[in-house]
């Protein structure tokens, strides 16, 4: 029953709806009392041959009216209560979505997509059921159950009634024991559903890899294993769930047995009449339904409860980002001062960055190069406020970026991630993703700057072309350049290109870099790249290795140092001459 309390906020908010729903329910129940009475009266009248046509007509009109009232009030409570359930679902879905939108990278590393989706589908369904079927069963069984017991007390015999409801506490015990087991079992079952969702999600996303390695059968076998496990877990749910009805049958059976023994004795002792015993038994019959309803209620409640706990556990997670000192601040701008002494990823003792210090005046370009896994992307992530728990500080225009809301930092940045992500909409909407109010001219300008405008004109529907999920229908270089236009579209103070030219050819790369140089005279740019030609014109180039700066300077200076940079430069030179012989860089 705890779930009703947990959902108290909702019932409070939807008070009116539920009060009306219950009133309609009561009305329907009351109207339901009329037909049996009318039947009784008419039957008696007919039996006594006292029925006149006008009398018959009167009673029939009453009957028809009761029918219509019942119909209307049924319609009323159904729309009210089921509508409440639907509203709850919408509300919970909104909350989840809003919550996802504000969570940080750590959260999404911890939870898999399939699992999050399961929360938003399967669990929400179980929760909304509480506000519909749950409320209804509860109200209905209490209503019917208590009126019946009162009728038994008043009309038959209080001693017999007390004796007969003696087994009822068993109901509470059963509900507790089975309910607890059911709760655990439902929790496991919902987790199993999450796993199934995760597995399916992964197989679909990785379908190309699975095909490449011809592992279709193995993947199906793996899925089958997960399904087998799900069946085992769900069987447990059904085992417990199927125990409710028999347990209730036995409890009611005990009531009957007591009635037979005690009631029989009372009749034999002539304390009550046989007639009274008969109506007593009829009353017990009326108790049967509410009791079974309670059994079903537990199914709904425990399922909803387990799901609510799961969803709440998720919702209670906190974003790691440091709370800013001010609620809102203008978008930062100015020189970038990057002073990081040490940073390590959560749950990873090794430092990912150490002693990264550099200053970048407004309008300058920084190049980041280094081996795979050196820490180039990490440097950018800190600037993007993905992680805040580093030693040192980053300031832009003198403003510590941790002291302002993430939005005012991000507002200054246009980021092209290394793994670009496109949305399954049109080319146009992907480009103006962050500037929906911009017109076609602006879109085309951004596209032209990233040298994709001509490609787009060749697409079947040009700017209206749908790119498919994650941009599947585009080539690697096309995706990358769309991501660049998307970043350029916001006219960022700081443009960050994270290996964003890796999938374009030399010619295109040159065009884009030229365009940037021309259009972004006074704006800052940070470029990470493996192809050194991308960074050679930067004002400063940092060579990163193992999270530390090993070399720094501009292109010329670095070549003179004859270190890693010079060596790589030579390699790329030599190799692009395709001569094969090894030269020295100098």
């Amino acid at each position, binding site marked *: 029953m705890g779930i009703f309390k947990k959902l108290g906020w909702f019932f409070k908010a939807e008070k009116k709806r539920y009060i009306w729903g219950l009133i309609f329910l009561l009305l329907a129940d009351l109207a339901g009392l009329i037909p049996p009475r009318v039947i009784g009266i008419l*039957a008696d009248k007919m039996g006594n041959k006292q029925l006149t046509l006008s009398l018959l007509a009167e009673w029939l009109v009453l009957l028809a009216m009761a*029918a219509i009232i019942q119909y209307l009030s049924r319609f009323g409570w159904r729309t009210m209560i089921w509508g409440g359930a639907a509203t709850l679902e919408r509300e919970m879905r909104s909350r989840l979505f809003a919550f*996802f939108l504000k969570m940080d990278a750590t959260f999404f590393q911890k939870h898999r997509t399939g699992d999050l989706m399961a929360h938003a589908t399967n669990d929400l369904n179980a929760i909304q*059921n509480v506000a519909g079927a749950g409320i209804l069963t509860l109200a209905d069984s209490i209503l019917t159950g208590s009126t019946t017991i009162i009728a038994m007390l008043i009309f038959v015999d209080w001693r017999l009634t007390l004796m007969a409801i003696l087994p009822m506490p068993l109901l509470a015990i059963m509900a507790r024991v089975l309910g607890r087991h059911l709760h655990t079992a439902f929790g496991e079952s919902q987790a199993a559903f999450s796993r199934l969702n995760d597995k399916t999600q992964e197989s679909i996303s990785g379908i190309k890899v699975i095909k490449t390695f011809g592992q279709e059968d193995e993947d199906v076998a793996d899925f089958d294993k997960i399904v087998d496990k799900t069946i085992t877990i769900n069987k447990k749910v059904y085992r417990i769930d199927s125990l409710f009805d028999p347990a209730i049958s036995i409890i009611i059976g005990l009531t009957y047995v007591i009635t037979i023994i005690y009631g029989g004795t009372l009749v034999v002792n002539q304390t009550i009449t046989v007639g009274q015993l008969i109506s007593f038994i009829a009353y017990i019959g009326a108790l049967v339904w509410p009791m079974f309803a309670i059994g079903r209620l537990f199914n709904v409640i425990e399922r909803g409860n387990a799901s609510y706990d799961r969803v709440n556990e998720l919702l209670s997670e906190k974003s790691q980002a440091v709370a800013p000192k001010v609620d809102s601040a203008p978008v930062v701008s100015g020189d970038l001062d990057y002073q990081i002494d040490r940073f390590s990823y959560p749950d990873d003792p090794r430092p990912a960055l150490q002693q990264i210090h550099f200053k970048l005046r407004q309008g300058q370009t920084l190049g980041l190069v280094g081996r795979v896994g050196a820490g180039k992307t990490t440097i950018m992530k800190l600037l993007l406020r993905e992680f805040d728990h580093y030693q040192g500080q980053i300031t832009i225009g003198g403003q510590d970026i941790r002291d302002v809301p993430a939005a005012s930092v991000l507002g200054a940045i246009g*980021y092209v991630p290394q793994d670009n992500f496109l949305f399954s909409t049109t080319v146009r909407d992907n480009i103006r993703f962050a500037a929906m109010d911009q017109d076609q001219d602006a879109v085309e300008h951004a596209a032209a700057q990233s040298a994709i405008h001509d490609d787009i004109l060749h697409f079947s529907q040009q700017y209206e072309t749908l790119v498919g999920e994650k941009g599947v229908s585009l080539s690697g270089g096309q995706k990358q350049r769309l991501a660049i236009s998307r970043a350029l579209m*916001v006219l960022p103070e700081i443009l960050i290109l994270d290996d964003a030219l*890796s999938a374009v050819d*030399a010619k295109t790369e040159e065009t884009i870099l030229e365009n940037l140089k021309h259009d972004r005279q006074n704006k800052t740019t940070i470029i990470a790249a493996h192809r050194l030609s991308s960074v050679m014109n930067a004002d400063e180039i940092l060579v990163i290795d193992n999270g530390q700066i090993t070399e720094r300077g501009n292109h010329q200076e670095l070549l003179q140092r004859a270190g890693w940079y010079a060596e790589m430069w*030579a390699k790329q030179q030599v190799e692009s001459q395709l001569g094969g012989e090894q030269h020295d860089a100098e």
Partner: protein
Amino acid sequence: MTQNKEKKTKQQSDHQEPTDVTTSTSENQSVWAQSIPMKEQGQIIKRMLKFTLPFKWLFIIAILSATALSLLNVFLPRILQEFMDKYLTPSRGTTRVILGFAALYFLGVLLKAVLQFVSNYLYSVGSEKALESVRRALFSKLHTLGMRYFDLTPAGSIVSRVTNDTMSLMDFLQFFASILTGLLGIITAYFAMAALNGTGALVVLAFLPILLVAIWYYARYSSRVYRRMRERLSELNVKLNESIEGIGVIQEFRQEHRIGQEFEQTNGEYLATRKAMIHTNSLLLSSLINLLYALALTAVLAYFGLLSEHVFVEAGVIYAFTTYVQNFFNPISDMMDSLSFMQDGVVAGKRIFRILDDSTIAPQQHPDASGEITAGKIEFRHVSFAYDGEHKVLNDISFIAEPGQTIGIVGHTGSGKSSIINIMMRFYEFYEGQILIDGKDIKDYPMTELRRKMGLVLQDSFMFYGDVASNIRLFNQDITDRQIEEAAEFVQADRFINKLSRGYHARVIEGGTQFSSGERQLISFARTVVTDPKILVLDEATANIDTETESMIQEGLRRLRRGRTTIAIAHRLSTIKDAEQIIVLDAGRIVEHGTHDQLLAQKGRYYQLYQLQHGVDATAEPTA
């Protein structure tokens, strides 16, 4: 499957306005707005029921127990009646008799409990198994579909069909349980009525046509509402899925507000459709039956009232007859409510069968294909290809790669390089031209042979949830730990793997986000290297890798190149410097073809590309 149908109706009814689920948004909207024709609904139901066949014994035993249960339910009150009529009324009840009846009754209750458990449990387990077998069928079907299908269908929608849509099958089977038990009740109630008063029974029967019209109307109308509802829900879930996957981009560009609002709008629309459905259900389902019942009752009473003008009607007859009328309508009302499950099931079923019947199947090999790749010669003969069957992205491609050779493919982005790989790997079917391997049509090799002998490193690396070793090995248990380490060393991935606290057993989370992009590419490279393919295909396999690491990998590849044909796509010309042949692609055509020196001598596009890489260099520093 329990008794006490009297009021269960109320419970079972609209409760779960079914949630979940998703559609292919590629679906034409107007199609979704249509209702499903009756005949098709029947076929869908029949096909769905087929999934229960393998578990028929579970269902049969469950249904038999349920039948026994209803008999017992008739019998138990008789014990009480017997007790009261024979012993209490004549005051003959001794303690022994009373206890005897109590014991007998309790025995009956125990039996009832057992039957209840058996029927409930077996029916649920049977439904669960049927449901899971639908999931299995769907999942394996998905693996037979071609890449084109996945290009066009959002992942969120597919996942939802496998996991959520199948869920409604459970309720759908419950619908059959209620039909079975309900029909029994209706028929017995009708015969009881007819035996009592034939004309009265006919009066009740007169309400049947109204009922049928209501059912017909509901089935037609609601399939439309349900479809609209599911379509909305589908949209919601696809949006949700995409937003979770693209959360980084959304946050970096501060679009939370806009995306949130868009979501809210769809969420609101979904609520509205759902409310429309609740209205329909409230108007047409058990409430309507209840109304019909009350009206039938009125009619019956009118009939008896008029009859009593002429003949004597006993009160008992009225009681009995009206009870039968109630018994007649109760199961109908029960069944009517399950109609919503049926509708939901039918709509979900249609979506499920759309996948099961989808013919975008993966390219097929010839039925008697049995070739074996030994040398690794590849030949393209006038191959043309279009993803959508209309706009050609490859045009008359012809080239020959001799065994052991390395072929480099270069060209402007979007020129069709990856597409060549896509059809050679048989991800997409091509209809013009021919691809030959070792002189034999590629379709004459069984798919497993192609997969075993051809290794591809994809342009986008994908990581599986698990650990590093399992990401290299995938499901192939024949690969030893030693081989995995060797492959990792080969691609220079050992350097960072060994630094991980758990080495090869380090956990890999979804998307492998705790690795740098280059590290991910190295792992996926190792995944291919470990299979030691006869034909190695590299699609920008080192685009995210630094030159130092790249040249070490190339060094390794050069050592192992004997007996291996390599096709390498790269923008960095340095990557393909060892190629015996270079193909220059432009807008889907081969524009130049030859060795590096030949191409340079031609002074064509390749020369331009080369000059460009040089031009960039030249502006900087006249090295070497």
